[in-house]
């Protein structure tokens, strides 16, 4: 069924879907903790797993994680990638300069936290390096209050 472009209409569709997501009770408290520069996690009463950021459920136990606790602001860099691009609404753009994203195991937590990392060279020795949280000067309970991690 060969067709030519003039067989089609190519309309612009002036309709954008707007969403208003509730963050839920656990992320709400996590962000409230940022106001005091605290990193909160949730602990599973069954298996004892500590998840950061906190969430309602422990998947393997299918149990509510009722307990919220503060975890350390220091941890180790377990995995990382150097980004050379940025994705904005799906579009790939060159990054102004390469940047590091790390998966960090905070002391006292069992899950890894994805964050920007500064001041670490990507060579040998990066994996396992001790890092610590760096906060924005002014914190207000916003996602970006916890700015990045740097060598401890």
């Amino acid at each position, binding site marked *: 069924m060969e067709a030519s472009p003039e067989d089609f209409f190519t309309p612009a569709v002036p*309709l954008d*879907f707007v969403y208003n*997501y*509730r963050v839920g009770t656990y992320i709400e408290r996590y962000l409230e903790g940022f106001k005091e520069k605290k990193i909160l996690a949730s602990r599973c009463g069954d298996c004892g797993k500590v998840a950061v950021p906190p969430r309602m459920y422990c998947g393997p136990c299918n149990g509510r994680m009722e307990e919220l606790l503060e975890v350390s602001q220091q941890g180790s860099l377990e995995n990382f990638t150097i980004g050379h691009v940025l994705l904005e609404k799906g579009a790939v753009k060159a990054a102004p300069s390469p940047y590091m994203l790390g998966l960090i195991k905070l002391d006292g937590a069992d899950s890894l936290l994805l964050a920007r990392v500064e001041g670490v060279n990507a060579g040998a020795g990066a994996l396992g390096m001790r890092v610590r949280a760096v906060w924005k000067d002014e914190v207000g309970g916003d996602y970006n209050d916890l700015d990045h991690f740097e060598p401890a």
Partner: protein
Amino acid sequence: MRNVGIIGIGYTPVFVSKRKDVNIPEMISEAVENCYANTGLAPKDVDAMVFGNMHTFEGVNMPHLWAADHIAALGKPVMRIATGGSTGMSAIHAAYYHIASGMHDVVMVVCFEKQSEGDSQVGLMGIVTPELMAMLQAGIDVSGSSGMGAIAGGSAGAIAFQACSYLARSGAGIEHIDGMAALERRNAAKNPYAHLKDANATAATIAETPLISYPIRFGHICPTSDGATVAILASEEKAAKLVDEVAWIHGIANCASDASAGNILEGVITDPAEQMPCQIAAKQAYKRAGIEDPKKEIDYVEIYNGFAHQTLMFLEKLGMCEVGEAHKLLDAGDLEINGRCPVNASGGVVSTNAIGTSAMNRVTECALQILGRAGEHQVEKDVHKALAHGWGGLMQYVTVTILADAPQKS
């Protein structure tokens, strides 16, 4: 083929217009917890899961992925089903085939919608907007004042064509739509999981609500709700080991048609009130369930009615009464909770509409009536066999499920 039954049901504590406390997985988990609590079962008893919703309504693509940890899905096969308004019942049907095939014994179905997180009108317009915009290029007047411009107000507009066609061909009047809406709002007042409730609704109070697009009034239209529903289905052998009460599934069927009143670019070949897929699916479901005369054999009906005239229209299309007879049953009081032919004792979709759950709740409500567990909205007559109806797409998908109080004889 193996017998399959519903062995457990769970709901979120409420179905309301806005759940302002929880996020999407947190809300769904409430219904999963409720279902496990009601049955005394645990995730280890469940072999596989089926998940359904309309994901453009809350803007999370395939939300079972994000919700997996919250619904005890890890390590299980999970199949995501989406067929528009009929999603909830399409998901039940998928679970049915998981078991009837012999592949699995116990399957959990999880359906939800959290419509407060998106704009439901935009969500519905999103079905046809590219086509409308193409017509704009062809010279359509979107203000609707001339030419082919009369796309009278989104989904209510297309529905108005259906309602008018139904009234003209059945002999019913707009006062019957008012009466049907009032009956369902009164029923909803008895159902703790209903959203729009009005114990004192009458045809007269509904008639006071403004006309949106003749013959559809504001009082005929469903709300948008937040809520989740969960059900567990099992094979006959497994059900006997796990629970004491089962609502059996005897026959299921579904049918698709052309997108009525929407695909204007290529011409619409169906009367939006004809609902041929409903007639075909009902016939198929009756055949599979061994039902010869639905009027006599079906004790209770739950109909997917986003708009109140659809209760009457679909009763006729399902063969529960003759064409032109439904409004007479309404006038005679036969459709009431204590009536001869009770329908939508739950309050129907017109009272509660978290879309992903809407068609599924028709099945779970039939199951509750069969088990005698519907509480204040339990119908007066004994329910041995019940029919659940689902409807979706652009007026073109129909699903039918026949439930019963005993397993089907082979």
